[in-house]
């Protein structure tokens, strides 16, 4: 049995185990490969060795970037790519590069640079999770780093203004989402029926866009027009993050079956919960009655969000 492994990363909200794409990727991979990780949410990234997040600590070994963490897990025999052919392995690398080049700038922009989003959602959320006085300084620093990265990688001439850069990166991101959707098609995961590294990365990047409620949501709206990607995120959330069965067994298939049964029970429970919440809201004096449209499979913290987003 491998030494106990601990992952330090940012916490989650809106139904996600973490808001940080890289942390989410590592967590998803650990679930897929059955690696037993204890997850610690941090409130002081500077205390983490090297200041990088997420960081994996196993005995004396400290590893900080997602790619390296995944490599380490593979070496410890937690390999989600076991059944992939060489060509599929190559495809994985290529699609990850596509995500980083095309989707990441827009993701960073939505979270950290778009003024309304940053001020009303991102900054308060991260600040509330950091100790004082870091909460005053660090969100601003992360925002500046994100802007810097976007401008340096995307902002050369002939694009001279920030609005043009923004338009370009959102165009690229939407194209990337379309490509991913075409590649996924109707299958459950990118390479057949079992999730792999690529699924972990795609989930890590897509889930924050999909779930976090921002005032400016053009990327989320585009994503919602691609139902197979939404279904992909929801499936992973429900199968791997909501239902911890004896979930550390590498027999992914068995847990998936057991998960499916629990899923049905959960759906019923959730729809009851949602009806109750709806009644409460109707009785509440502050909010006007709202219609409930199609309910997605959502967990606790998130019921309020479909309701909030129905504003005309």
């Amino acid at each position, binding site marked *: 049995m491998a030494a106990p492994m601990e992952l330090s990363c940012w916490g989650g909200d809106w139904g996600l185990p973490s808001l940080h794409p890289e942390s989410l990727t590592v967590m998803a991979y650990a679930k897929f490969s059955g690696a037993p990780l204890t997850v610690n949410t941090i409130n002081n990234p500077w205390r983490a060795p090297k200041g990088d997040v997420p960081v994996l600590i196993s005995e004396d070994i400290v590893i900080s970037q997602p790619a390296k963490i995944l490599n380490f897990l593979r070496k410890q025999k937690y390999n989600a790519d076991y059944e992939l052919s060489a060509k599929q392995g190559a495809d994985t690398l290529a699609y990850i590069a*596509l995500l980083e080049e095309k989707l990441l700038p827009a993701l960073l922009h939505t979270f950290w640079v778009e003024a309304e989003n940053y001020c009303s959602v991102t900054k308060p959320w991260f600040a509330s999770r950091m100790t004082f006085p870091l909460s005053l300084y660090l969100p601003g620093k992360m925002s500046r780093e994100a802007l810097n990265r976007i401008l340096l990688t995307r902002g050369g001439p002939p694009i001279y203004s920030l609005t043009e850069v923004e338009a370009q990166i959102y165009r690229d991101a939407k194209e990337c989402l379309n490509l991913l959707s075409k590649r996924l098609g109707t299958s459950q995961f990118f390479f057949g029926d079992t999730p792999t590294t690529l699924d972990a990365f795609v989930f890590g990047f897509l889930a924050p866009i999909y779930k976090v409620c921002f005032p400016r949501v053009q990327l989320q709206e585009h994503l919602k027009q691609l139902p197979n990607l939404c279904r992909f995120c929801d499936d992973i959330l429900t199968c791997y993050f909501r239902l911890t069965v004896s979930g550390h067994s590498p027999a992914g298939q068995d847990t998936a079956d057991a998960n499916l049964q629990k899923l049905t029970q959960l759906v019923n429970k959730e729809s009851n919960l949602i009806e109750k919440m709806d009644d409460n809201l109707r009785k509440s004096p502050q909010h006007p009655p709202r219609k409930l449209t199609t309910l997605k499979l959502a967990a606790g913290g998130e019921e309020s969000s479909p309701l909030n987003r129905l504003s005309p």
Partner: protein
Amino acid sequence: ATLCFQAFLQMCNLPIQVVCRANAEYMSPSGKLPFIHVGNQVVSELGPIVQFVKAKGHSLSDGLDEVQKAEMKAYMELVNNMLLTAELYLQWCDDVTVEEITHPRYGSPYPWPLNRILSYQKQWEVRRKMKAIGWAGKTLEQVLEDVDQCCQALSQRLGTQPYFFNKQPTELDALVFGHLFTILTTQLTTDELSEKVKNYSNLTAFCRRIEQQYFEGHDRDSSATAAARSAKRSLLR
């Protein structure tokens, strides 16, 4: 990059004339090389040039279905992400290479002190970019390992086929050829980078095949194009 795009145009059977100018970077509308000058239009960078050529009715990727096009774009990003950044890193962040090769080459068209100033400026710019994307902390070995991984992926994708998709060359083939050929033929302080590529015999065979098929008509001008290529490389990014 110049080569990628010469290869691409050759594949489309469009005749081109290679010209080198010292101020090419400034003539280009986006500040990046290469660029083409057609009639009274000027278009730069591989992406827009491909679009431009497509609009004129020549396209190499029409025979691909949607999933293959997605794959092609993904592989092109992989090449851009890994190979291009590694080339930049080697040229500008590895101190030995910078001193002995890059600075003299980059500054060669200009008199002193302009040559030193411009090379330092470029170096500072590239290092800033590396820092932003997280490559500044990488050592040379790590960069070479990344290149190796990228080549392995490309080699596995190519397999035993003549081109990456079916029997017809596409933009991806042009891009990969351009980068690999540059790596294989550029003189650097160490041969480690080209050794990494040479480890994959199907990739070297691929380069040779494209060179023979699309560039052999220019054998007579090969010395001219080689000089053009090396001059253009001195202005590379």
